[in-house]
């Protein structure tokens, strides 16, 4: 009986810790914010030349910003979606090393 009681207490404790973890993550976890942000995007080519793009954006994440810059400027990028998000493979035709 004591064994069973201990097991139940253990499982309840695990559930409580999981819920506490969810709460802590919700309160203190990383957050992106939409809103007017200014940016400077600098692309350094293999030969050392630098191309800068400046502006403001309401994009929450970098991918959204890159899409905007690609739509409005002479800028291209390629990549693939993975388990951890979008993985950038090339910018302005140059492959990332």
């Amino acid at each position: 009986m004591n064994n069973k009681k201990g097991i139940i207490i253990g499982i309840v404790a695990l559930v409580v810790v999981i819920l506490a973890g969810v709460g802590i993550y919700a309160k203190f976890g990383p957050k992106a914010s939409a809103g007017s942000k200014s940016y400077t995007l600098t692309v350094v080519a293999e030969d050392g030349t630098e191309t800068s793009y400046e502006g403001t954006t309401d994009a929450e994440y970098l991918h959204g910003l890159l899409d905007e810059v690609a739509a409005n400027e002479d800028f291209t990028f390629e990549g693939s979606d993975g388990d951890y998000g979008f993985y950038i493979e090339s910018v302005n035709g140059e492959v990332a090393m």
Partner: protein
Amino acid sequence: MKDKASKKWGAYEVASMGIMLAIIEVSKHALDFLPNIELVSFLFIVFSLMFGWRVLALTWAFTVIEAFYFGAGVWVIAYAYVWPILVIIVLLTRKVGKQNPWFYAILSGAFGLSFGFLCSIYTLVIGGVAQQFTWWVAGIPYDIVHGIGNFFICLFLFKPVMIILKKVVPEEKQHL
């Protein structure tokens, strides 16, 4: 009955450690595609129960092999103490656990839930409490998956694997 000579590292002990290391490595990489779902915790638990304190050496051998495979990084510091902590807890609580699958499932689940926190301890030295806290909090979703995965893996596999180990390992070599 425990073999008194088992305190020494004989051919059997060396060979069995090698086989256990291979099993852990293969099972880990077989599940690499599933983030934080792993058999490593479960295997260290059952191996610790079966072979005793020797398994501490196995945890460090595992860390070395992982460093060769993935390349050494700061994560090696965490691995060097996190897995031994699991082995030590298993061995210190074996009289309480009494080979009860539920007990070890809860232990494994708790270890999985606390994995991120344990790994973040070394960041205290690097960047203080602020870095440790942000590093740990950012990984909480993965810790939850890790804990739940560990719980069910251990719950379902503990009994059958222990039965097999008891058949395969000579009785005088068992530390149960």
